């Protein structure tokens, strides 16, 4: 599996052309357009080609003076980072455990496939249906509250189960743990079992094996999974919107609202900033490993 780009024979390079074209048409081109439009002017009903920085200035208006607390943009990013960090942390721990179990404790391949399918269950229903179905579970009169009430643990329904940061992170973890499991599992399955056995024979404890062997050797999977989760959560507005009762801020929601009100250049400017920040986060992550070498 280990080869570098340099080893590909030159005359088969054209095989990459179809993908390069798709990549250009559906990724590079829209991105360039977004960047261009972010410098345009706009009214209620039209966007006007221009080269102005107003859209960017508008985003950071009031951010330097610090009057009346944090400005909208900083507050929104802080809230988005908050969701991003906790979702990342929890999906990482959960995803690592699940992948570890699948890779080292489940030995039959059919069973592994079967359990993988189980992990995809959250994606079997539409987003909206899944969101709506949290209400009967976590709501004021939902199953969880009724269960606790009947046991006498609480005498008032717990309000923060739904439409809170808790429910947002719960839903995000529920959705995106799979994105962690798959790459981590992929790394673990390629760890040479004899290394683990050798460590065991040399008297390493279970803990030492995990921290000194498994984790360093699954680093690629961990970073790739982290990139998936971070990029998806940074741009999310549906889950945060619905599970937060539309009362919690996210960058995605601001862009969505601006699009709905035909403020395309403003939305484009926000998107560019979001992109820069997300790319920076990914850049920092990839400093920990050389992905190309590890693959």
């Amino acid at each position, binding site marked *: 599996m280990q080869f570098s780009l340099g080893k590909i024979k030159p005359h088969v390079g054209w095989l990459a052309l179809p993908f390069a074209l798709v990549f250009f048409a559906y990724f590079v081109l829209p991105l360039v357009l977004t960047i261009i439009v972010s410098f345009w002017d706009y009214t209620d*009903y039209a966007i006007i080609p221009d080269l102005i920085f107003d859209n960017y200035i508008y985003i950071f208006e009031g951010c330097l003076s610090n009057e009346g607390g944090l400005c909208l943009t900083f507050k929104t990013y802080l809230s988005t980072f908050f969701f991003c960090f906790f979702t990342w942390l929890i999906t990482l721990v959960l995803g690592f455990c699940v992948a570890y179990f699948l890779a080292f404790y489940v030995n039959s391949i059919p069973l592994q496939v079967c359990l993988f399918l189980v992990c995809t269950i959250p994606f079997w229903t539409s987003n909206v249906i899944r969101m709506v179905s949290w209400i009967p579970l976590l709501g*004021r009169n939902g199953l969880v509250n009724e269960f606790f009430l009947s046991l006498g643990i609480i005498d008032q329904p717990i*309000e923060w189960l739904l*439409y809170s940061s808790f429910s947002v992170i719960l839903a995000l973890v529920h959705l995106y743990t799979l994105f962690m499991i798959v790459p981590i599992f992929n790394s673990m399955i390629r760890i040479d079992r004899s290394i683990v056995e050798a460590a065991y024979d040399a008297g390493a404890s279970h803990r030492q094996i995990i921290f000194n062997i498994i984790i360093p050797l699954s680093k690629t999977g961990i970073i790739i999974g982290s990139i998936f989760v971070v990029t998806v959560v940074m741009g999310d507005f549906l889950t945060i919107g619905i599970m937060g009762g539309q009362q919690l801020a996210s960058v995605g929601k601001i862009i969505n609202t601006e699009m709905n009100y*035909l*403020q395309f250049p403003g939305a484009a400017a926000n998107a560019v900033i979001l992109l820069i920040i997300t790319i920076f986060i990914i850049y920092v992550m990839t400093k920990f490993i050389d992905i190309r070498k590890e693959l």
Partner: protein
Amino acid sequence: MKNQLLSRRQALKLSAGTVAATGLGLYAPAVISSDPITLRYLGTAVSMGDEVQKKLFEDTGLKVKFIAVTTDEVTKRVLTQPNSFDIVDTEYFSLPKLVPSGNILGMDTKRIKEWDNVTSIFTKGITPKGKKVGLQGTAPSKVMYLEGSTGKSFAGDVTQYATLIPTIYNADTLGIRPDLIGRPITSWAELLNPEFKGKAATLNIPSIGIMDAAMVVEAMGEYKYPDKGNMTKSEIDLTMKIFTEAKKSGQFRAFWTDFNESVNLMASGEVVIQSMWSPAITAVKSQGKDCIYQPLKEGYRAWAAGFALPKTTKGKKADAVYEFVNWYLSGWVGAYLNRQGYYSAVLPTAKQYMSEDEWGFWMEGKAAKGDIVSPTGAKLASAGEKRDGGSYEDRMGGVACWNATMDENKYMVRKWNEMVAA
């Protein structure tokens, strides 16, 4: 819901052949020569079932193909892809964005048979019995006419060219769960009453949400707006400050953006008082939950929609659009809309298609004599019940403001986002 519509539409295509065989021979009017014209109809299609298409084809030989999208998406499409549809059904409050673009033409009122019978709420801003309607916001009577068919600004006077031919409108208010509140609610101010802390909701659609917010602020006696539908920056600040404080203190259980979310919030009892739309009330009731579209003493927030002709529709297609609009106003659709709790633009023609009991219940605020059913056959009220808010005169006469596009729209959206982030 949309999926259901689609599949029924597909079913209709199959049956169209048989309808054509029986229908065309009898009713085919002069415009239709050989092949039927299909009009691409851009709109939210909230009120349009397949019965409408079927009846249209029977009566005129015309077909429509619905392009069903959200209100915001309708505006976007008109501005960015004006050649992707033949007729558009849009709201009056979008007009300040649409008209300056020149993408829609004024409709020639001389070609609309029932134009003189269109309710005076649209043409003069008064109810049929002469009661003055609140005109704050983008009231239809303020944006009804264009100077010419290609005008890009609104006319001050009555002209031959209408921006939109009105189709459907209603008066919106707060929805409540009377069984969970247990006392009468009479004012918009109740939305921020600490008694309902954590059990209130409003919508996260800034342009409509701010109007409801303004109704509340005025009802609380905090401020009296010269025009709720066109606030100054300081008025927006004031309104949002009051709502931000309420939000921070935990007044709202949630905000909603999707019609179904509002139904779920109410039916599950998470929320007992909230901004709501009339079909959502019907949906909650159909789940066996008590729900009232509560009339309030400060009045209603109204909205209205109508048909416009894009500049790209010409010749035979344009003739067909006029024929379609004339058919739409000729009564059958009007009755169909009135039975869903909306109002139709030409009342006398709709009356001919409704029974005396239906007309009495929906339009005159009388107690029903028998069961009142929706166009799909669902029972909406039993004998003896009255409509929430009463008669057409009482409801439309009680309108305080209309959905609006403000001059300070950009600032308003930003302030709204700040409230959400607070």
